[in-house]
């Protein structure tokens, strides 16, 4: 099949970008979206042009490295699917496809379709961890955890940090990402000691990075390839109230001096 692409090309972080039109001919429907770009890039390379830069790693939907806004939708038209797991059979011959990078001040473009997502790393570094040495795996059932909590924590931890939530959000908010990381620990006993401090630190870092502010549109969960639910945002909000208004202030002293 033959399709027309409009791809965002930007030489480096400092340059102004623009859309460049490419004709993608003889595309096989069973190619993945990224393989289709590989085909274009092979041609561009042979023609002595700069290939289109896009992020990817595992190409099996588990690493969260890929990320393209395809016709106005993060990761393209299929629900619960990363761009690398999207196939050209989701399109038809003659289609016109616009390919853009994640757009957010906190995700500056590095080159073409690649953005710098280290803001996410810093949000994690601000509190998305457990300080106690974890040691080797504990004996099964040594720490009792309600089955529901274990499942919900697992669902939150399914986040692969791709950033589609930010890309799709009208406000370019990172709440779904941050909330998934807050919730995955908050739901488990190991996460309790730092629970109040964690949410404050991660929210403060999120604000500092210049993400927008959640207004509960829910387009983030709609494009999330791992279906992380906005219920986690309610959990973050709950923890935030708790840590500010309810948590024992004296008890926080020891924890505060640790970081």
């Amino acid at each position, binding site marked *: 099949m033959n399709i027309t692409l*409009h791809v*965002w090309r930007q030489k480096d972080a400092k340059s102004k970008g623009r*859309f460049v039109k490419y004709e993608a001919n003889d595309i096989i429907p069973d190619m993945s979206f990224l393989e289709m770009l590989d085909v274009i890039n092979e041609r561009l390379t042979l023609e002595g042009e700069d290939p289109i830069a896009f992020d990817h790693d595992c190409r099996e939907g588990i690493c969260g490295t890929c990320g393209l*806004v395809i*016709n*106005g*939708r993060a990761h393209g038209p299929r629900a619960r699917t990363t761009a690398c797991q999207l196939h050209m059979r989701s399109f038809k011959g003659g289609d016109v496809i616009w390919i*853009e990078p994640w*757009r957010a*001040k*906190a995700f*500056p473009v590095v080159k073409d379709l690649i953005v*710098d997502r*280290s803001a996410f790393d*810093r949000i994690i570094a*601000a509190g998305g961890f457990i300080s106690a040495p974890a040691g080797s795996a504990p004996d099964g059932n040594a720490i009792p955890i309600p089955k529901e909590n274990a499942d919900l924590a697992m669902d939150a931890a399914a986040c692969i940090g791709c950033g589609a939530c930010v890309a*799709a959000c*009208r*406000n*370019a*908010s990172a709440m779904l990402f941050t909330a998934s990381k807050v919730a995955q620990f908050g739901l488990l006993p190991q996460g309790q000691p730092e629970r*109040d*401090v964690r949410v*404050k*630190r991660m*929210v*403060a*870092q999120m604000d*500092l*990075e210049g*993400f*927008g*502010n*959640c*207004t*509960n*549109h*829910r*387009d983030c*969960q*709609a*494009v999330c390839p791992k279906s992380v639910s906005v*219920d986690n*945002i*309610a*959990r973050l*909000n*709950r*923890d*935030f*109230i708790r840590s*500010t*208004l309810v948590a024992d*202030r*004296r008890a*926080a*002293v020891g*924890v*505060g*001096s640790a970081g």
Partner: protein
Amino acid sequence: MESSVISVPVGAAAAKRAGYLRAYYGSTVGKKQVMAVTGVIMVLFVIGHMIGNLQVYLGAESLNHYAELLRALGHGGLIWVVRGLLLAAVVLHIWSATALTLGSWAARPIGYRHRQRWIESTYASRTMRWGGPILLLFIIYHLLHFTTGTLHGDFVTGDVYHNVVAGFSIWWVSAIYIFAQLVLGLHLYHGAWSMLQTLGLSHASYDRLRAGLAIFVAFVVAAANISIPLAVLTGVVS
């Protein structure tokens, strides 16, 4: 990009210095929660106001007596307490909304070329920032119209029933009120759900109730209030 991981003062001494509430309101989540709490106050007021309005159907005496009662409660003091509370709520709500909105606009300096696909967001959620300012204009007009009488033309102090009937007999006045109530319904439809989410009040066992409550509140408030100008225009109330 050069920013590094910050260290938030969380110890008691640091917190005392920064002030717990200042740190809270300084964060975007705190601001949003202030919007939600002030939203709750305004929603409860709007529901109470609607119930009061419906007394127009009981006749002139009922409505005027009710209005008198409101002014007399607590030796005439309660109405000022409520007015003060509502003013504070409106100011905080708008202040926070403005700060958060400006932050969100700044968060995407370069937009998408292709129209963004909306999947779960609703018309109501996408028009909150239109609805809010429209409601503000309406609230100002409404106060100058029915409370002070400045923009009324045939205002009789104390005769609320007359003021309502005379006011809504003018078709474009009714049109303004009907339009404003549609906007309010839309703002409440997203707002009622959103504020519960913002306050962390979600739970699998009542999430469906949450959505239903938002539709119910928005529809009942808008429909009941819209019925009044319609009743005057059609002569049901005269």
